[in-house]
């Protein structure tokens, strides 16, 4: 029998329902694996007791014939979701000791569906980062090793780096992520897993520590397209507690995986070939286009002329919103307080000690672009360009059904690389940010391996609230890609193992 930790969620649900194993066994297997892989630093907080208790309850429910959609499935929760009575840090020092007295809507829905929480997953501080190197609780290590330098520690991507690493390393069957500018898709690509940022408004933001409210979206990360669909079925839905939550019914995303994409038009944006794009990534992209053609879809070259401006737009809008969203971390009601002589002194010392360098930098940029005299030149301008970017997509979707792009310009890089200049680091999100600004659904799936043996992802972008088409096309690509490779330590191996049809 396959190791329990190697099962997909879909297969685990079948196994549980057939009684092949219990939720307690499944959870225990994951808890053991977690203990063995602490060096990845994927979890900030492990909750083994809670997990076993939930697993027991799950088995009881199943025995009573009341199993939910994800009953008994052990998941990791990104530590940006408030979880009642469980430490919630946003990977920041400033939330020291914070135990929310409430549960986020998305994690509550997952609980209600019977899933088991293994713990809280590491991330970039306040989800600000693309490499999971800004966490107060330390870097997350990508379980994948480069062939040329197996000793080198690679980044898992970010900000949902803990989620990506945990799913790839088989220490969670699936995980929640959040995506503001690529924080689900880019780590999914770097870790060789699948993740989807649904349409803005599809999942409730209630109870998720806010980074940039007009961009933040929760989504699932798992090892297959179907697993993501199963998780999103549970996570999505209108929430009256979030005024930006869409009052739109949730279809059965898993049912969309028909395998039939004949006649679909797939947009290939010509602007997605910037200078820094690696040849390997470009090759996987070409490969992806071929797979879709072979399945009966038609590639169509499209133009998204304002693509180039997405990054600067994002780096005005997101910090502006963040500077305001993070004002509540002031040492008064929760988290860290550093003593000061006066109220202002206390604020300044607390926030200087509580926020890491990247967060402080973004708060300051955000503060500046909103300040008197600069608001119009920066913030208003960015909002106007944002509309142009959204309109680019709208126009494109008049002729195509889905858009295919690379997820990130390269495969995972080493921890400590790309850190000298913040702007260079931001280029990781060049393909994911436009989608975020336009609020569209975007899915990343592993499509191949680089020469160095590292996974590379492709991104599928859909129309607003048309995750079904995205899933359908992703399902076809997943079959074509045949990505069976696993990172080091999964198949008892010390290095990566297996293969993929895509790549070199």
């Amino acid at each position: 029998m396959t190791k329990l930790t190697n099962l997909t969620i879909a297969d685990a649900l079948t196994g549980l329902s057939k009684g092949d194993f219990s939720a307690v066994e499944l959870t225990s297997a994951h808890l053991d694996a977690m203990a063995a892989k602490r060096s990845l630093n994927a979890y900030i907080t492990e909750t083994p007791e809670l997990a076993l208790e939930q697993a027991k309850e799950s088995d009881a429910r199943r025995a009573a014939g009341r199993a939910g959609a994800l009953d008994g499935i052990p998941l990791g929760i990104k530590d940006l979701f408030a979880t009642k009575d469980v430490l919630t840090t946003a990977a920041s020092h400033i939330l020291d000791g914070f135990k929310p007295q409430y549960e986020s809507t998305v994690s509550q829905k997952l609980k209600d569906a019977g899933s088991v929480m293994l713990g809280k997953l590491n991330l970039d501080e306040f989800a600000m980062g693309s490499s999971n190197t800004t966490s107060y609780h330390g870097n997350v290590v990508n379980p994948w090793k480069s062939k040329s330098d197996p000793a080198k520690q690679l980044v898992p991507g970010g900000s949902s780096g803990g989620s990506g690493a945990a799913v790839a390393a088989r220490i969670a069957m699936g995980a929640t992520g959040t995506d503001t500018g690529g924080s689900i898709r880019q780590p999914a690509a770097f870790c060789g897993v699948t993740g989807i940022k649904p349409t803005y408004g599809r999942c409730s933001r209630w109870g998720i520590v806010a980074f940039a409210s007009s961009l933040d979206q929760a989504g699932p990360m798992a090892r297959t397209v179907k697993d993501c669909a199963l998780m999103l079925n549970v996570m999505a839905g209108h929430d009256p507690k979030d005024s930006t939550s869409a009052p739109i019914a949730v279809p059965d995303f898993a049912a969309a995986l028909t395998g039939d994409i004949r006649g679909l038009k797939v947009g290939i944006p010509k602007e997605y070939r910037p200078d820094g794009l690696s040849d390997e990534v470009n090759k996987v992209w070409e490969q992806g286009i071929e797979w879709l053609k072979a399945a009966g879809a038609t590639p169509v070259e499209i133009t998204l002329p304002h693509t180039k401006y997405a990054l600067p737009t994002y780096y005005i809008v997101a910090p502006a919103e963040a500077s305001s969203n993070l004002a509540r971390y002031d040492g008064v009601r929760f988290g860290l307080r550093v003593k000061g002589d006066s109220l202002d002194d206390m604020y300044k010392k607390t926030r200087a000690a509580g926020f890491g360098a990247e967060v402080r930098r973004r708060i300051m940029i955000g503060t500046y672009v909103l300040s008197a005299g600069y608001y119009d030149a920066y913030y208003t301008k960015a909002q106007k360009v944002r509309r142009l970017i959204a309109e680019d997509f709208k126009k494109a979707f008049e002729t195509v059904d889905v858009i295919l792009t690379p997820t990130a310009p390269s495969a995972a890089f080493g921890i400590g690389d790309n850190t000298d200049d913040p702007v260079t680091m931001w280029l990781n999100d060049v393909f994911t940010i436009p989608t975020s600004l336009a609020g569209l659904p975007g899915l990343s799936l592993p499509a191949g391996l680089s020469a160095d043996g590292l996974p590379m992802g492709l991104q599928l972008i859909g129309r607003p609230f048309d995750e079904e088409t995205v899933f359908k096309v992703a399902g076809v690509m997943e079959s074509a890609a045949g990505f069976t490779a696993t990172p080091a330590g999964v198949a008892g191996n010390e290095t990566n193992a297996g293969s993929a049809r895509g790549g070199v």
Partner: protein
Amino acid sequence: MSLDRTTVRNIAELARIEVRDDELDHLAGELSGILTFVEQLAEVNTDGIAPMASVADITLPMRQDVINDGGYAEAVLANAPDAVREDEGGFFTVPKVVE
């Protein structure tokens, strides 16, 4: 835009983040680099384009005027550093403010 030390200090003041004098130059350099990067937006023609604050294609939903929240001072104060606990009044505290 190249930011000077005074501007950086003012931003830090507005954001209530303590910045040491010896950090100012480095920070000014970083922030200036970022601003220079984002300023490429100036080349985009946005005449007649309305700013887009949200992609959500709905208007603001409203709730009914019913009381269905609050009444849990203990939970509200549970995480507070240096709070006056409920049995002694139930307050958050801050260093004394002189108005």
